[in-house]
């Protein structure tokens, strides 16, 4: 009898303690550290923009292997102009990584054999020295690896941190990693991945028609291009992102920089929810949200009226002159209660 009593009271104390630690601490990173990632490590699905991997849903913490390859490659930056990009997985931005709090992630970074330079990765989602940069520094043709536990939920930038860092980032070496809270983010109908970057270019001496990084313009923070997803028109024409009337849209927006902050705005929409700076604070009814270089935001809105919605950096010269422009195409029935053109015509 006494034994049972002791056991029960012990049990209650444990529960009480657990509750207390859950409610008292401003963040839940301690409890995330204690979460056990189940099972054998599996290779995580990663995606190029504007796609994102499937939501984590309500699964428990698991072990993942994320494979990234750093490359140096020529790609189209605008119209038919080429640029020497440096990338994670051959895309700018790099692959989108999606995990949940408590997940254990082994990040394998392979530097392509024909790279000229060493590269590494600093993930802002990592708690530890350099965000993994020193641990993952890989010479051309070599691989490096480290394992971290995702303990803070949020949308985080990752980037190469090999010196000179502004050049590695300026050439496109950044991406996003989403750490969902336990239970996952609320369900929405459409999710997209958009990342802004500023590009500083000059004509390559080695090859006609090729642009390359201009150090002086970068230091002056005077870019020739400010782009979504590393290419002028990456979200225009056939590449517009899409949704239907009545659907909710979530944009995972990052800003690689290296220098400019973004005044992120969707013309004709109001953000119902903004996860400020990609963290846990949710603000409502936002027109334009500030996204710092090396930072992010999650924006959500419901599509009520059909049409083409222009996505811009509302520091507008960048949108009109330097390429920071994209479109969301919303299809479906008109909703005159919300928007009706031609209401008050001047009578003769």
């Amino acid at each position: 009898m006494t034994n049972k009593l002791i056991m029960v009271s012990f049990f209650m104390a444990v529960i009480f303690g657990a509750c207390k630690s859950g409610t008292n601490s401003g963040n839940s990173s301690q409890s995330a550290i204690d979460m056990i990632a189940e099972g054998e490590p599996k290779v995580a699905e990663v995606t190029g923009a504007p796609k994102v991997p499937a939501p984590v849903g309500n699964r428990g913490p698991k072990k993942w292997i994320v494979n990234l390859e750093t490359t140096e490659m020529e790609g189209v930056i605008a119209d038919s102009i080429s640029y020497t990009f440096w990338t994670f997985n051959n895309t700018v931005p790099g692959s989108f990584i999606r995990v949940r709090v408590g997940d254990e992630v082994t990040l394998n970074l392979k530097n392509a054999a024909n790279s000229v330079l060493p590269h590494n990765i600093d993930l802002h989602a990592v708690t530890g020295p350099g965000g993994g940069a020193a641990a993952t520094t890989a010479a051309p043709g070599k691989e490096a690896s480290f394992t971290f536990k995702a303990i803070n939920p949020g949308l985080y930038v990752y980037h190469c941190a090999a010196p000179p860092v502004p050049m590695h980032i300026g050439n496109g070496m950044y991406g996003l990693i989403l750490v969902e809270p336990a239970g996952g983010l609320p369900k929405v109908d459409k999710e997209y991945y958009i990342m802004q970057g500023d590009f500083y270019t000059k004509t390559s001496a080695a090859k006609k028609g090729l642009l390359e990084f201009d150090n002086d313009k970068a230091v002056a923070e005077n870019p020739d291009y400010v782009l979504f997803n590393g290419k002028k028109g990456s979200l225009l024409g056939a590449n517009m992102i899409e949704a239907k009337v009545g659907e909710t849209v979530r944009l995972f927006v990052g800003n690689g920089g290296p220098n400019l902050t973004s005044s992120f705005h969707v013309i004709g929409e109001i953000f119902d929810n903004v996860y400020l700076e990609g963290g846990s604070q949710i603000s409502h009814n936002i027109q334009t949200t500030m996204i710092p270089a090396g930072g992010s935001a999650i924006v959500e809105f419901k599509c009520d009226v059909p049409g083409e919605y222009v996505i811009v950096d509302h520091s507008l010269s960048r949108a009109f002159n330097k390429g920071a422009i994209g479109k969301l195409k919303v299809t479906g029935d008109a909703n005159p209660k919300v928007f009706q053109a031609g209401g008050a015509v001047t009578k003769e």
Partner: protein
Amino acid sequence: MKVLILLQIAFVVLFYSCNKQNVKLDISAANESKLISNTIHSISSDVKMVYIPGGEYKPFYGSEYVLTKVAPFLVDERAVTNEEFLAFVKANPQWSKSNIKKIFADSTYLRDWQSDTELPKNAKPDAPICFVSWFAAKAYAQSVGKRLPTLDEWEFIAMADETSPNARAKPEYSSNITSLYLQKERQYYSVKQSKPNYWGVYNIFDLIWEWTDDFNSVLTTNDSRTGQYEDKDLFCAGSATSSTDVLNYAAFMRFALRVSVKANYTIANLGFRCAKDTSINNKK
């Protein structure tokens, strides 16, 4: 009791070996390298050497106010080539692709060679040798009676452009080199096809990265010259705080490469040239 002591000893040994594994590897490799060096057969080399008078210079990583002295030395006017390294391997088969001790080079040593004594298909005999480890570079240098240049010697030469011994203050100096570094697969070109620098040294920047004798010294702590900053953080903005010239992106790239390699690494665009001490003091 005896068992306990034994256990304790075993534990201590285990602990020590875990902790010092990398260091031990380097030490034993260095020791073995010494042993092997006694058995290296000399080969002849007709590469022209250039006299560098040395002097004081400001290292890229270091204090703004402390200059480093570089003694006069001789340096090969160009990098060691494929055919020269082939001659070395023929005379020293222990350094061939199939015989090399694993401790001295990783799995990509002389990666594209067709056999122990055949260069890669389509390789130019006079293109710089690559996919060689620091150990192999050291062994080669010994076979021709030379050594690898020190990091300071190498960077001293690298301050020059075509017309001046120290071009670091010229804005185009770094940007020109950076442009070169952006181009891939330059290592397949022949040596001496571009103009030499002020000293008459060729291809310092345009073909390959080059091993230096103390390539990893940038990581050492308690550097006698620079005692005040032991923990050199080369990552992210940290690299800027300990550099004397934050706009010299080309130098950042070289140091980033040096930090990323180990002595047994072999890489597609990493080769070397040789240097030598000299007693001559004022020639040129």
